[in-house]
């Protein structure tokens, strides 16, 4: 017997066996979630409890998830894209990766929580906040920032962390917030961002990337989504959450059905459930600090308390959609790499 031949067979046999190893169950819906696993998992468990449908999921950041769905366009691997700031979904529409679907809650949702054709539908709302390290404030004898201009204070020099607009929806929402509070005077808004630049220690890849450094005091503060900020606080880090008096933006979190999904019926059931009070009522139980998108769901009292005096405005989806790319490019050229 020939050893070379045997070796060649040994090489290829397990390879062939493995091809048969992948398996898929029948009443399981496959999902890419952009929500972190510790929030997505309890939601999907609730869904299984309510409907008996199992959710098979894997978590990616918004950019990775979108890149995968686009790459898999010809032969989709999942049925639903769950969560993520709505501009991720807007970017996906151009690629033709979603199937329009209007769940029963569609009519009840305000216009900014749905795509007119149902390419995506909102499942939550997520305002931005200022988050600062309590010890840092105390050492520098500062009050929690209450205005966008407070962040320009030289005491913050090289001590702020916030997200990078190339990778993070949080950053894009932040830029549009600044444009909005400057009365959509873009030049004025970019003047402000350039002035803020020396105080920024790092633009992080993900929206929540700076929360741990702020919690640990590696950074003094930053601008984050409220879910991430409250999560940092819940973990035991001594941070202060505040809002600028000029106002700050909020972004919807959306869900969408993938075009060519293998289990479209199950996918629609998940969307029905996620856009209804059935899911959004459980945010509070699982200590997930998103604001519900559905008007019938009440904001959890302690979350409402945090938001009591905050001036929060939605980002105009049409304006943002039309100007997003240009704004990000301008940010890269003028703020990130001047």
């Amino acid at each position: 017997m020939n050893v070379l031949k045997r070796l060649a067979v040994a090489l290829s046999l397990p390879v062939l066996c493995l091809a048969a190893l992948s398996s898929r169950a029948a009443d399981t819906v496959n999902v890419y979630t952009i929500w972190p696993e510790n929030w997505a998992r309890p939601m999907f468990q609730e869904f299984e409890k309510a409907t008996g449908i199992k959710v098979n999921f894997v978590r990616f950041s918004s950019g990775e998830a979108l890149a995968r769905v686009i790459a898999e366009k010809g032969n989709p691997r999942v049925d639903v894209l769950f969560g993520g700031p709505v501009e991720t979904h807007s970017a996906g529409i151009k690629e033709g990766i979603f199937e329009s679907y209007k769940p029963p809650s569609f009519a009840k949702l305000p216009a900014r929580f749905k795509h007119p054709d149902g390419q995506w539908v909102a499942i939550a709302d997520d305002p931005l906040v200022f988050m600062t390290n309590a010890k840092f404030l105390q050492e520098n004898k500062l009050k929690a920032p209450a205005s966008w201009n407070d962040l320009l204070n030289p005491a913050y020099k090289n001590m702020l962390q916030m997200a990078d607009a190339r990778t993070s929806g949080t950053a894009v929402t932040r830029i549009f917030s600044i444009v909005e509070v400057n009365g959509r005077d873009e030049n004025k808004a970019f003047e402000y961002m350039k002035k803020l630049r020396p105080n920024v220690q790092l633009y992080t890849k993900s929206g929540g990337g700076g929360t741990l450094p702020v919690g640990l005091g590696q950074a003094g503060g930053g601008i984050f989504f409220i879910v991430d900020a409250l999560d940092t606080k819940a973990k035991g880090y001594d941070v202060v959450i505040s809002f600028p008096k000029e106002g700050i933006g909020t972004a919807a979190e959306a869900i969408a059905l993938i075009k060519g999904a293998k289990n479209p019926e199950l996918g629609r059931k998940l969307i029905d459930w996620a856009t209804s009070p059935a899911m959004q009522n459980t945010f509070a139980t699982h200590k997930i600090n998103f604001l519900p998108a559905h008007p019938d769901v009440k904001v959890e009292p302690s979350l409402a308390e945090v938001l009591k005096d905050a001036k929060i405005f939605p980002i105009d989806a049409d304006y943002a959609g039309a100007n997003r790319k240009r704004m990000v490019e301008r940010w890269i050229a003028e703020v990130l790499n001047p």
Partner: protein
Amino acid sequence: MASVAAPEGPARGLAWARQDPALSAAVLALWLLLGLFVVFPLAMLAARVFWDGGHFSVAGIGAILTDRHQVQAFWNSLLLATLVGLLGTFLGFVFAFTVARGGLPRWVVTAIDGAVLLPLISPPFTTAIAFVFSFGPRGLITYELLGIKGFTIYGMGSTLFSEALTYFPIAYLALRPILAAIDSNIEGMAMSLGASRWRVFRTVTMPLCIPGLANSFLLLFAASLADFATPLILAGNAFPVLPTQAFLQITGMFDLRGGAVLSLALLVPAMAVFVLQRYWVSQRFYVTVTGKGAGTAPFESVAPGVRWVLVAACVAVTVVIAYLYALLLYASLVMAFGANHALTLRHYGVIFTEGLKAIKDTLVIAGLSMPLGGLYGVLLGYLVARKAFPGRRTMEVTSMVNYALPGTIVGIAYLIAFNDPPIELAGTALVIIACYVFRYGPTGIRTTIALLQQIDRSLEEASESLGAASGTTFRRITLPLILPAFFAGLGVVFIRSMTAISATIFLVSINWTLITVKILENMTELSLGPAAAFSVLVIAIVFVVIGAISWGLRRMRAPGAEPVTSLLGG
């Protein structure tokens, strides 16, 4: 690391195939595998980049390549890789020299070996994260210990330092056997002729090491060029590098094409280094093994004062490494690092419940990749080094492609190529295993070739002239001699299967996931505890498996065979 001895006589027509059917079957099988898992994915990627709606197009590619910031990132990458190569090689040489010539007690050498292995076998992000905690604006060392305020950690300095610390073990492992192989009698002779210790070092020891130094510089250069995890955390905004830019272009700007173009730009220096190493350095190894042995009492080539400086330097670096990993272990054992330092085993509870699937999947994938990668490396290395068949050189170069390319580009290429019929592998474990085998198997190939260089062909020729078929010769003569290369290949594929992320982050699926992806996921969720616990687990598993492999290696090494030059140096 070694050149290929050209087999005598050109192969004429198909005669080679008729003469040796076993050989032709093996060559054919390997070409099929290489075509499927190396050529095909890259061709699909190139099609995605250059074909726009059915016709060839280079629109937009020029814009990306001439963009001021991308050009800057390109030069930054080269600068960083050069500096990492220099610093890492220097560190590696200091360690190798101290261990080989310092006359250290055995337990100290063992301790150094263990500490030096740590950075090589740990999952990505871990050193970088420990760095931030230690040297950040509020770092344990910069702030708590030294009281420096507002220290900036993000930038080239810390990226360089972290990468050098992560990769210098490659230089150490590559240089140590070379120094050990230099017969110290030669140094002794020089000294007895009246040369000072410094002069001996400068004119005898150093020149003999030059090829080794050049080789380890190139290895470190390539490793730094492809690294994306460290700059992602430490480079900050003022010092963009190309692998990170490519990743951001794909996942941030949703620009697959732009990202692919940037990765292809990275291919130019990566390939240049590979060619340099393959055709220049590999032919300049000096052999000083005389067969007589250097004697038991090593020559006192280091002055006592110098020796203490060297030992102190090694101990200092070892302590820094040990400290970084102690920090990681500590972070896995407290409730929330930096906020609540109550001891707990909770994070280990989390990884063995919610993370259990990832652990099982990773072990299955690494467990299958390991033997396949080892076999593949030995078989291909053997054929290329010892057999004459058409396209031998092409096969060798093709087998190195996935190894030389940055991980991001390999991952994206696999994702594009294997998602759709006819070859639909996305979502299976096979696509991840194939990625590991063809990306990390080449280390085994090169170790095999290097080892076969040191074995005289006359052994095999004697067997064949006595009438044994090529298969029998391979099994009875060659196989026992190249077993060390097989084990080295096993080790590298296993370590990488447990710790790699840059390519496979694109290949995990709802069916199969990996521990490294979980670590990244936990980092972004601020769950530092589970991330640290996962890392500690990976390190523990790898240590056990590598220990078992080393044990096997010691037991099975054929008497008289040269030691494997380095397990991980390739």
